[in-house]
């Protein structure tokens, strides 16, 4: 048994998951005290891919991101927060001072150097991708402790560009 608290677009539901059903093709779930059967038509669920299942007798196609922070279904994109009430932990949010490239692209302007004091929200560099100039901003206030890139450099998604530490 597993107890989860799911908040979706600011609406919160308590979901209790029971066993996989005897033939292994689904689940029985209690949501806000009501019993619901869920059918999994396909054995494998893939991260970030198109998945589908049937809740009650209502089919849903959906995509969920690897960090489980959103779900996209026919009705659009919905924000998610998942609390595992057994584990007593929320899904972690990233919050360290490492500024990573959100997309692959080209650094066109670098506006900080090591030792600079920065305030949260100020533009620290410009990353050009798909013909758009994207301002990358400081996620928190602090001092620049490392700069790993130079203007003119191409970077991959997720590459650490700049590190900001506490003064």
């Amino acid at each position: 048994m597993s107890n989860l608290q799911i908040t979706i677009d600011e609406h919160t539901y308590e979901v209790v998951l029971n066993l996989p059903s005897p033939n292994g093709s689904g689940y029985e779930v209690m949501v806000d005290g009501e019993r619901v059967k869920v059918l999994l038509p396909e054995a494998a669920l893939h991260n970030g891919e198109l998945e589908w299942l049937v809740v009650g007798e209502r089919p849903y196609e959906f995509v969920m991101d690897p960090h489980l922070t959103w779900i996209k279904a026919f009705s659009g994109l919905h924000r998610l927060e998942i609390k595992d009430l057994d584990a007593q932990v929320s899904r972690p949010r990233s919050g360290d001072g490492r500024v990573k490239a959100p997309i692959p692209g080209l650094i066109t302007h670098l506006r900080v150097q090591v030792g600079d004091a920065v305030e949260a929200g100020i533009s620290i560099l410009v990353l050009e991708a798909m013909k758009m100039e994207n301002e990358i901003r400081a996620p928190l206030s602090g001092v620049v402790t490392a700069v790993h890139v130079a203007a003119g450099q191409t970077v991959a998604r997720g590459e650490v560009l700049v590190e900001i530490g506490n003064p």
Partner: protein
Amino acid sequence: MFNKVLIANRGEIAVRAVRACREMGITAVALYDPSDISSLHVRLADECVRVESPAFFMDDQAMVKLARERGVDAIYPGYGFLSEAAGFAQACLDAGIAFIGPPPEVLQQTRDKLAALTRAREAGFLTVQSSPEAYGRDQMAELQQAADQLGYPLVVKSYRGGRGRGSRLISSPDKVTQAMRQGQQTAADSENGRIYLERAIIPAHQISVQVMGDRFGNLVCLGEREGSIMYHNQKVIEESPTPCLMPDERARLWQTAVAIARLFHYQNVGSVEFLVTDAGEFYFSEIKARIQVEHPLTEMRAGIDLVREQIRLAAGESLSFRQEDVNLRGWAVLARIYAEDPQRHFLPSPGRLARLRVPTGPDIRVDTYAYSGCQVPAAYAPLFAKLTAWGPDRASSIARLRQGLADFAVAGIPTNIPLLQQIVQAEGFVYGRYHTGSLKEPLLENGAAAPHLRDLAVIAAITYIRRHQQFEPAALERLATGWHRESRRIGN
């Protein structure tokens, strides 16, 4: 007619051109840089030629050289890249290759936006107000003066830039210098980095009138399209006809568009663009001397293949129909689907498109270079699909577009589809009351509590558990002691 055509473009418009060529029995040559090899235009073409980098698509000399080497007799430029470059069109002609678009002298005149405005103004047409000339980096004082003369708010525009790049709205005199620097930075990669000013009309409707002309001076009008819903200077939802005009205003707009096209001796397929006020006054802004992204709207209403006509007209044929043969039926709506992440301020989201299933059914059309498993390359604009829906009236075309968007299944990369879904639900859009200022900053709103949110919560819970089972041994252990034992008990 041509035997072999080089498609000097990529992506969905290249797919469109390859298909048109093959339908006409013309050999189609496609181009790709290594990052773009998985795109559909490469697979569908008769010949595909690898080029070194995306920059090749802007290199007129190299393009003509390649065209000669491959023995093509015409070049199809599409939109963007070299599509409106008079020098390129001339270089094609000099090499004995037809340019599928207007003649170079027409392009010369339409590309010089200030001269085009002046010419239309002197011929008695109402135009947007502009600065008398374009200004370079070292002409800050002249620019400030021109801005003050023109009045605020105004728009800073790149003289040679396309696709709204470098356009910035400024509302007061003290913002001129800063906007100019930014505008020139963005415009720096275009021909000479100069910018000019236009008096802003707010609120306004951005309306293009589709025209088509042959070399014998015949000109026809295929109706208008409205493209006022945009963000980051990109249009997102367009429709034809526009809901903002009365029938008599529409008739006057078409007549004006044809008259302006005639003034420029326009040939081939193009659009005459206007800003239209809520009072129904229209101001000429420019001629787009090429096929436009949103051309399917017109094709679905007119039943005319615009790309085929472009090729026919460039081959010297006359228009195959007269104005009185044009019958614009019903209503069409188009959504531009971009590889952009609504969760990250609509930053581009290139990458592998793990799954794609596009909507099908009556009067639904999808233009795309993408398919399950292909790459959306980072080097090009983020448009990867266009969804067009037709209906006998506006309400039914919107209903069909809505269904099409809900039905458009994409996984692997984030897209702007959730935002498009919100726009087509918004009251302002549904009632046809919107303008160029309606969607300044895209903002994804939380949906209203729908009955299915509870089902989605269940889905999220199951996905959470399954992923933990799969990827996190610690969780698996916890489940093994709690979950499975429990299950056995209930199972019995």
